[in-house]
């Protein structure tokens, strides 16, 4: 292990390290701590220029209550869920299939199709902006949740295929050969042999996709407008325009908007990290 394990170092350094850890953490998370404190302050604190000090009184409930009752935030949140969940299901389903095809079968076009997915996934998405917006308009899906979901599914299939294919490559191939010898059809091999083994990969991808899609801002403002279809990332900017200089409400709104992916991360941490490392760093 590197650096030298702390147990083997002198006692004084052990104590310094233990003391330094929480300090470093507070420093690192300062921006978040600031929003959290902002969100429980009364608005008089900001009028009295008490920005960075302790809240003069606890107004957390009032602020969050206002966010949920006096603004469009609940609607935006609901939209975010309506966009994120179908996208996650769609992209994971499609990539289970493409990953299976590219990971198990040997045919000449295999590597090129794989590279098409990988390259497409790396593309700066501004080059897709005008044509995709136009396509969505022509399909009559501009400013609808469906339009946004369809694009996200298609684009994320690139990354998901990369992930799934690498995962399936690492499975023991003998299993599939044994199944073929038994005369089991390819479709049944996918469904009964490979898919059950892919559960950890599916979990990892689902959590990761959830965060990516939830936090998307660019496509939200390109393909949607207004409260009937925009997700919370785009909603928070109009929320902020509405409550300009109402820092306590802006903070509370931001925290509400950030909470679902954070909860997802903490609940499914191990899967999340497996997903981030693309399964390449074992």
């Amino acid at each position, binding site marked *: *292990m590197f650096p030298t394990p702390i147990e083997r170092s002198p006692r004084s350094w052990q104590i310094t390290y233990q003391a330094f850890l929480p300090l470093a953490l507070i420093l690192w998370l300062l921006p978040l701590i600031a*929003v959290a404190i902002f969100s429980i302050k009364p608005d008089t604190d900001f009028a009295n220029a008490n920005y960075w000090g302790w809240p003069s009184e606890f107004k957390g409930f009032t602020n969050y209550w206002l966010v949920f009752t006096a603004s469009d935030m609940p609607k935006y949140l609901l939209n975010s869920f309506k966009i994120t969940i179908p996208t996650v299901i769609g992209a994971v389903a*499609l990539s289970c299939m493409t990953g299976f095809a590219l990971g198990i079968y040997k*045919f000449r076009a295999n590597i090129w199709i794989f590279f098409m997915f990988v390259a497409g996934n790396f593309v700066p998405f501004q*080059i897709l902006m*005008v044509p995709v917006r136009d396509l969505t308009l022509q399909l009559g899906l501009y400013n609808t949740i469906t339009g946004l979901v369809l694009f996200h599914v298609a684009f994320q299939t690139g990354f998901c295929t990369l992930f799934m294919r690498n995962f399936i490559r690492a499975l023991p191939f003998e299993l599939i050969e044994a199944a073929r010898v038994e005369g089991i059809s390819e479709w049944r091999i996918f469904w009964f042999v490979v898919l059950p083994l892919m559960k950890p990969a599916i979990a990892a991808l689902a959590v990761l996709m959830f965060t990516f899609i939830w936090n998307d*801002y660019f496509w939200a403002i390109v393909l949607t407008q207004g409260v009937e279809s925009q997700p919370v990332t785009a909603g928070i900017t109009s929320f902020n325009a509405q409550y300009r200089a109402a820092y306590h409400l802006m903070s509370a709104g931001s925290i509400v908007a950030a909470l679902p992916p954070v909860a997802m991360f903490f609940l499914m941490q191990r899967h999340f990290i497996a997903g981030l*490392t693309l399964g390449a760093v074992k």
Partner: protein
Amino acid sequence: MTQASVAENRQSSWWHQNQQQITPWLFLAPGILFFLFYVIFPIFQSFNLSLYEWDGLGKAEYVGLYNYEELYWDEAFYTSLKNNVVWLVLYLLAIPAGLFIALFLNQTVTGIRLYKSLFFFPFVISQVVVGLVFTWFYDPTFGIINVLLGSVGLPPINVLGDENWVTVGIIVAGLWPQTAYCMILYLTGLNAVDPEQIEAGRLDGAKSWRMLWYIIVPQLRPATFIAFVVTIIGALRSFDLISVMTNGGPFGASRVLSFYMFEVALSEYGFRMGYGAAIAVVLFLIMLAFIAYFLWSMYKEERAR
């Protein structure tokens, strides 16, 4: 045996013989179709569109390479291009910073797992929120930066209002989540480092820096590769932070190509789809150099297997 069942039999045996050739295509079909229509074709459409003048509604007019000629004379284009380079260079600092934090946290003390996940926190949060908070930090009247500067007797600086500092200010905000990402990559990588090599290094008397450079870093290659890929892509895609923190200002000083493109094509500055597409093509070509390199590395690895 009746006619029908013979035909069925023949059909099933044809399927039986060829199913290994056909199945992969059946599995690929929906994914490929989606991807072609939403990702691959639009790339070519953008190339084509960059040869037209189009407002998004009326008829497109073919103008040849005129859009590119206009780009050549466009001051704002060069500002954006320069900022893209600054983003690329400074954003890469996330990699050593992430390695440093990973080394700091790579210990086994009580509660270290919670520390690791809390350090990772910034990455999970939307860039819109990150941008918002950093805007408050930088605020010239009440921002904490200026409160601190004031307390040691220095004059306030308006980070986001100063043409020379604005891009750096935004990149610092972007480095926060990106460093967290690189950190987690390295933490996972450090788990896989071979302890025997470290022991051997210790016996040979390798001290910390030499040990890090000659023994640890080479073993972290896979993590470093992914860190490079995601950081470079992240730098070239930077849009959210700029949009939230400055909206390209002051006077367009914090624009990058991806933002300028959006501004030209979709904001109140006019709906010039062709010109926007030309900017996107330039951005794509820059990215293409990196994509080619990434694919080449992956290809070599595939062959080596």
